């Protein structure tokens, strides 16, 4: 099973691909909208790419609760477990 750091790094690659944010800036405490400038449309792309990469389902209703990178990593960890 993937470690927290492996999930963060994978998510960072996805955010970098979609929004162009440098991978090193994509840390657990960063807010997608406030710190990383990921708008709502890009967030949908991030979520769908994460679902595919980590083999999880992230319903639209749950996406709203994923404020930070750490929130998303924890959600994926729980879903994979």
């Amino acid at each position, binding site marked *: 099973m993937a470690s927290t750091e492996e999930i963060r790094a994978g998510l960072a690659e996805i955010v970098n691909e*979609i*929004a*162009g944010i440098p991978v090193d800036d994509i840390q657990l405490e960063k807010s997608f909208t406030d710190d990383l400038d990921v708008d709502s*449309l890009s967030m*949908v*792309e991030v979520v*769908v790419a994460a*679902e*595919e990469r980590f083999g999880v389902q992230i319903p639209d209703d749950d996406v709203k609760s994923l404020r930070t990178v750490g929130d998303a990593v924890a959600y994926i960890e729980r879903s994979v477990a």
Partner: protein
Amino acid sequence: MTSRRVVVTGLGATTPLGGDVPSTWRALLAGHSGVQHLPEDWAELIPVRIGAPLAVEPLQVLDRVEARRLDRTAQLALVGAREAWADAGLPAPGSDGYTDQVDPERLGVIVGTGIGGVLTTLGQYDVMRERGARRVSPLAIPMLMPNGPAAAVALELLARAGVHTPISACASGAEAIGQALAMIRSGRADVVVCGGTEAAMHPLPIAAFANMQALSRRNDEPQRASRPYDKGRDGFVYGEGAGVLVLESAEHAAARGARVYAEVAGAGMTSDAHHIAQPDPVGAGAAQAITDALADADLVPADIAHLNAHATSTPQGDVAESLAIRSALGAATDAVAVSATKSMTGHLLGAAGAVESIAAVLAVATRTAPPTINLEDPDDGVELDVVSGAPRALPSGDLAALNNSFGFGGHNVALAFRSV
């Protein structure tokens, strides 16, 4: 109503001949063809395997993340708009000095397209069928909507006076310029960034145009396929590109000391009410558009030294347009140097009217009419003085030129440009 004169201060383009206006203009004067064999595997599936793709891929000049949010039509419009904006000597949007030169509330954008974001529409349909509805991009709607290119340009330039998208098939780019002229004259804006864009290199629209018998099938000789007015012409060559112009009120341009290429002196826009795709055989609506453009510009036929013709290289259309020109200009037609630049660019559909207006503006500004290539055996039904083989110098003194653009649906647009 027409007291506000309107001038062209900036030009931008990306075409099958070059990634910007200078390279495109040089290629036009040199008589180069942008037509080639289509390299894609899908070309084997359709009867037409030639086309006029861009000379420079937009991804070579746009940021990767910026580009992935834009349909190719918007990418091309943005490339053209950035060149035109810089060419007009205007500061980068949002930079110091920007609002000294332009009031965003008085800046408009009008960018037309013939087909819209069809590469996104069809590409996302493939995604849905192959990978499921969940994988359809949330960006698909802003990418496929035909106003997407105009909106992208307005976002880039911070334009707030209004964003518009004329959709009139292959007249769209010219109609955008005509609407920009009206927008500035009406007082709604001081500066309007206008033009057309098209990017639909996909087997479906090409097969559809081919099934209309609209496209040349000279698959073995791509560079000789687009041959307006030649007896051997057999249809147009499908291309892609964008052309963008910065139009300003003459007062606004003078106040900021802008370089002026030419005046946009007038526009005529009519409709045939004849057939959804066939030209009126005598070009009555087209002739009326030319007559209207002259009246709007306060010009007479004898003032016209040059005309960039729509001339797509179809058997019917080229003759109908030539009849329209002679009907509108009468005996003065004999003194008009006619250029059919689609012989080199191919047909850029919704971008054609803008790219050809740029060519007409540069012809006025440099007093040089570009050549028409592949005219080896002129059609006896075409009574025009076609500039063939090499560029031709235009006379000194006051000079005016016309650009004609027509579209499926019976749209006719004639634009008049005058030397300054």
